[in-house]
Every structure is written in structure tokens, then in C-alpha cells.
């Protein structure tokens, strides 16, 4: 079902899956280009969760996915406000669980969640480093002159305003949280995790792809985690 949520800056779309009662997972897909590569994958996980009796809300953040907000107007604060609005919108059924993929981990500090589940998380600076490196292959390499008074910069097709650029750059490590936190990574990723799974890093794919077996396995782990946190 296509739903929406309202935040202080406007209205954004939100896909809803699963039953009208019981636990809800808010799923935040990766940022920028990785978002589009993982949309099919995220929907597959949400459908599998629905079969396990768990609802999912899959919101578009302002300036990401199908959002009509221009990317250059997106800021970290706007995204944080949007996540709070999504939490408010689904909290009638109790505090939701938050599932974040990759760079969306910059947003998992929102208050009012019951638990956090991270897939292959990276800090904001790593998100920005990826964009800067891709841009450096064929375009701009020197960012020292980019600042508060600069017009938005184009990083491989993404228009970023200075406030978002600076906020991502400042986020140089994943944060610890005061709610239960679980981290899942792929087995080729040497970083620390509670669970490692074999599968395709779809967020790296040049063209959007899918890994049905990985989606099913992740949905199972996420469902078990939600049940455990709900006690």
C-alpha cells in the first residue's frame, strides 16, 4: 500500500506492508545511488516480513528515492525530522523497530524506537568518500574550496548542498545507541558484526540487481530480532 507521512517540510511517500496489528519495522534504505539499487531488495525483505506477521514502513526521505524534494535542499536535520515524523505516524501500535541499510545508519539515533538493526552500516563520511571518489574518476577532485557560501555541488549526478556535505563529512564513525542494536554484514566485509551472511552487495551493483536468497535470510534474521526485542 502506498501511504504518506507529513513532516515539517512537506509530505513524502511511504510504502506499507504487512498486517494492521503487531510490531512495525521502519526500514531506511541506503542513501543516494545505493538507494535505487536496493529498492527491489528492500521491498522483498518487507514482503517476507509481512508473511512472518511483521509490518514494514518503507519511507522516502526528502530528496531521496521517489521524493519530489530537490536533493540539493536535503539536509541531515530534514532527514532527522522526517524520520521522527515517520516514527510518530506508526507509533499508534507501540514503539517501532528501526532497520537501516548502509549510510542510513546516520539516521538511526532518532528517539522513540525500540531497537535498531543495521545492514552493512557505514558512517556518513564513508558515504561521502564514495561519492567523492566516483566524482574524482572523471571530474572534480579538490573539495577544499567548497563551503557555506558555495552553490550546491554535483557529485556524480547528486546535487549536494554544503550543509549536508559537511554533516556527512563530520560523521566519521558509527554511533553506539541506547536501545538494543544488531549489526549484520556480508561475509566479505571484515568489519565487526553480530551475524555474517554470504550474498551479493547489491548496493555496489552498476545496475540494480536482486538476491532473493539473501533477502529471505535477512528477513528471517530481522523477524527473529524483532520478536526477541518485543520479548
Amino acid at each position, binding site marked *: 500500500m502506498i501511504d504518506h507521512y507529513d513532516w515539517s517540510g512537506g509530505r513524502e511517500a511511504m510504502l506499507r506492508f504487512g498486517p494492521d496489528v503487531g510490531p512495525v519495522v521502519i526500514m531506511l534504505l541506503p542513501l543516494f*545511488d545505493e538507494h535505487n539499487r536496493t529498492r527491489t531488495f528492500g521491498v522483498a525483505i518487507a514482503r517476507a516480513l509481512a508473511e512472518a506477521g511483521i509490518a514494514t514502513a518503507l519511507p522516502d526521505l526528502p530528496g531521496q528515492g521517489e521524493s519530489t524534494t530537490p536533493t540539493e535542499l536535503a539536509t541531515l536535520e530534514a532527514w532527522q525530522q522526517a524520520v521522527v515524523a515517520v516514527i510518530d505516524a506508526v507509533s499508534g501500535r507501540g514503539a517501532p523497530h528501526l532497520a537501516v541499510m548502509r549510510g542510513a545508519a546516520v539516521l538511526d539515533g532518532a528517539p522513540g524506537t525500540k531497537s535498531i538493526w543495521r545492514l552493512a552500516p557505514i558512517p556518513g563520511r564513508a558515504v561521502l568518500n*564514495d561519492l567523492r571518489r*566516483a566524482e574524482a574518476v572523471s571530474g572534480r577532485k579538490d573539495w577544499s574550496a567548497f563551503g557555506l557560501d558555495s552553490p550546491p555541488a554535483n557529485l556524480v549526478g547528486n546535487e549536494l548542498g554544503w550543509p549536508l556535505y559537511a554533516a556527512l563529512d563530520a560523521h566519521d564513525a558509527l554511533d553506539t545507541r541506547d536501545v538494543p542494536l544488531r549489526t549484520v554484514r556480508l561475509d566479505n566485509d571484515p568489519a565487526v558484526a553480530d551475524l555474517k551472511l554470504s550474498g551479493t552487495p547489491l548496493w555496489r*551493483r552498476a545496475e540494480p540487481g536482486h538476491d532473493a536468497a539473501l533477502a529471505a535470510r535477512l528477513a528471517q534474521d530481522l523477524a527473529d530480532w524483532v520478536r526477541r526485542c518485543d520479548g
Partner: protein
Amino acid sequence: MWHRGQDLETAVQVETVVRRVLSEVLGVSAARAEAFNADTGLFGALPEFDSMAVMSVLTELEDQLGILIEDDEVDGDMLATFGALTAFVAAKQSR
């Protein structure tokens, strides 16, 4: 001092990882990646190997092999062929 056995092991391991990462990022089958040889053209030869894919490949190689690649080391030459990319990465790895 020379450690030829170790060098050979490193080279084989690097080649395996480069093949796997190219397969993952470009979405080509493991069989097609297995058929890459030193002269197989990459950047400029494979249409799907654009600047975003170059970034993905280099970043995955860094993460999976624990190496650091500076952006100013990245140029068309080290990306031109499978052999050039593997040699570049192997030189990093052995340092």
C-alpha cells in the same frame, strides 16, 4: 630478502578477490569473471564500468583486502585491463 612462496600466494589471493569484486559490482557471472585474463579490457572497454562502478570496485577492494588507495593514484592506466588492476592491487598488498 625474497619470499617467493608468499608472493605467489598473495598474487593468487589478490587475483581471486579482484575477480570476485568485478563480478559483484558489474553483475557479470562468476564464469565470465573467471575467463578474464591479463589483457581483458575494463575501463573504456566494458560499458557498465563507469566512474560509479570504478569507485565501487576500488572501495570494495580496499575493504576486502585492507589496503588504502589514494584518489590521485586512480587513472585510466591502472584501470585499463584486468592485468593492470591486479598488478596495482598486488603492489599495494605486498607493502
